[in-house]
């Protein structure tokens, strides 16, 4: 075209501002967090002592940390194997509704718009031992009330259900959009050929929305890894640390305890874990979700 675009200097000049911002807001914090992970910094002091891998080995040998990792695992399993199937079924149902589709869409999207704090408190009422809706129903049918958020056995499950409820609407809207963009002719042609509803879902709709489902799974895994707010609002990681995830473990054991060095080491471990999980997912599963061309 012209000389200017062939001059490498031009490209460098264009790239520099972006690189600077990237370095300032992404690379530098990451490196400094990694650096402090190797120190005994208490968050205030001017003197910082390097302690090698002590923070990392301390975290990895702490059973409380591994129990928080396990809870992140529950989040992922619950999202992938319970939340995603529910959202797919719900999306298919809404897509085939003839009347009031807008109402369903809005109603199901509502929780996603509300803040996590509101949702946490709202569900806190539902789970309340004495006056909660859930126990009222259980007692009405002759059961024993369950201490949902107060018992280490049920607290994690209660949070998972709330979290699922909160985000389902967001994923449903995504999947629904994918379903509604499928050309009507495909479905009609199959119908003329005599395919049943279930067959059409299996052979036409599902394969065509697979890429979106893959994105939804990806998002819910990433969301599960960084879950913290809902837990802080609902149980503060308790009772007895039974609902701590990695992020709340970091807050509770590192920041509250004046151990920023340890906290930074933890945040780096969380970063690594999240990377590993998402890369594994991309390599093993997402790649197989084929690109669709109509």
């Amino acid at each position, binding site marked *: 075209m012209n000389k*200017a675009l062939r001059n490498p200097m031009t490209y460098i000049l264009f790239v520099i501002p972006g690189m600077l911002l990237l370095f300032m807001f992404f690379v530098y914090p990451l490196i400094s967090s990694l650096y402090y992970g190797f120190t005994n910094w208490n968050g205030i002091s001017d003197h910082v002592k390097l302690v090698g891998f002590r923070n990392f080995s301390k975290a990895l040998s702490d059973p409380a940390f591994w129990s928080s990792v396990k809870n992140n695992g529950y989040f992922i399993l619950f999202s992938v194997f319970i939340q995603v199937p529910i959202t797919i079924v719900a999306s298919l149902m809404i897509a085939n509704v003839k009347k009031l589709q807008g109402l369903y869409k809005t109603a199901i999207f509502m929780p996603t718009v509300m803040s996590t704090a509101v949702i946490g408190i709202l569900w806190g009422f539902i789970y309340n031992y004495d006056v909660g809706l859930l126990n009222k129903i259980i007692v009405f049918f002759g059961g024993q009330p369950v201490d949902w958020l107060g018992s280490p056995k049920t607290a994690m499950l209660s949070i998972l259900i709330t979290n699922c409820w909160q985000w389902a609407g967001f994923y449903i809207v995504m999947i629904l959009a994918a379903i509604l963009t499928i050309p009507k002719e495909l479905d009609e042609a199959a119908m003329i050929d005599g395919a049943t509803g279930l067959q059409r879902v299996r052979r036409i709709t599902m394969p065509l929305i697979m890429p979106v489902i893959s994105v939804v799974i990806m998002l819910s895994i990433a969301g599960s890894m960084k879950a913290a707010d809902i837990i802080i609002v609902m149980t503060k990681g308790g009772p007895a640390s039974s609902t701590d995830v990695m992020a709340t473990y970091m807050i509770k054991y590192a920041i509250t305890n004046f151990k920023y060095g340890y906290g930074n080491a933890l945040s780096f471990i969380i970063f690594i874990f999240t990377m590993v999980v998402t890369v594994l997912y991309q390599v093993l599963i997402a790649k197989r979700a084929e690109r669709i061309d109509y």
Partner: protein
Amino acid sequence: MKKNVLVLMSLMLISSIAVAGCGSKTDNGSSASGETSDSTQGKPFEITFRHALIGERRQGTLDLTMEAVKKMESEVPGLKVKMDGVDGEVNRKDKIRGEMASGNVPEIFDAFGSPDVKTFAKEGKVLDITPILEELGIKDKFLNLDAWSVDGKVYGLPMSASAEGVFYNKEYFASKGFEVPKTYDELLALMDKIKADGKIPFSSASKSAWVPLMLTNQIWSRLAGPEVTAKFSTGEAKWTDPAVTEAFKIHQDWVNKGYFKKGELGLEYVDYNTQFINGDSAMMFDGSWAASLFQEGGAGVSLAGKIGFFNFPPMPGGVGDQTSIMQDMNNGYAFSAEVAKNPQKLAAVKSFIKNFYTEDMQMRFLVERGSLPCMKLDEAKVKEQVKDPMMQEIMMMLLHSESSYAAFDALVPADVTTEIGNQIQKIISNITTPEEATAAIQKVQDEANADAE
């Protein structure tokens, strides 16, 4: 031509970023130099007063504090105080620490003496106010400044004191013919009677672990002696000592016997007070700060005059003074170390201390707000001015107990506090034994003790 345009555009992009960066720099520079040259009297200046007195419940305390602030403003020429109210928990765990790290500490801030201010003091981030106290001649007027002192120097001052004991519903006790228990056995019998009557003996809400721990702390201090908690950090005593473990066992027994509300681990501290106010529970083990609930503007004002207060009874086989009470002077104000560099600000801080820490102020806090004094007050005056029978009972309890001890979280490192909280919730939910719980706490204590050396 086009080349020039491209280069120009990129240059503009870069320079705009650079200019933005420089802009803020020069800004900082000018204000910093302004501060240091600004030592002449009367030049307008501002200090930030970070308080945690937000919400309706603390409005009265804020109003009283504002009186001292107004006096300070009128005394120091050019001073303008910027009041900055932040939620106590957010301020303590988050905001103030970030400010300590970045160096922008408010001149006056709400703080906890031990371990927070002591940690800040070791880093030279808070003002040593010993000379001010000596100049004002009030250093010996305080009941106890241990929580605020490092190596004999004082780094902050408490707002008020608090003591922990049992609040009970007098009207209910009278209607059933119950009496204040004088011994531990009487307390146990009383709890059984209350339970049989269909009420919960003690309020409970253990979502935040400090709430149930007030009671456990009291029991282990009865059984192993009031001095025991201070000895954990020196290694002289261990959490695994039988008497301490026994306290955790008692707490678990009480849970299993149904002396607390079911589902307590899901409940917030507000529920603790609510259970007592609405009559679900007959007793509440709480700090004297809860007295304000039963005063004008409090949630339990309908119970005003019907609430009594007694000291936890002596326990059989207990070590040491069995009338000892948890008395805490840990929450108060500290000052930025930067204040020392600016004579005007130093004068403002001095004026605040002079006007806030007076016998008159302490008395008004006691009478109007129900907060216990942290300074020595004339006994006769206290008896004359305190009309509320519950406050009289609290003050009498303080006068009649021979010793006091600080709350455990002021005496052990923060990570041990976290672990105790974790373990007490396990105890309450019956997923651990008292022996395992104290062993786990001792392990963290050992690590912390080794780190401290």
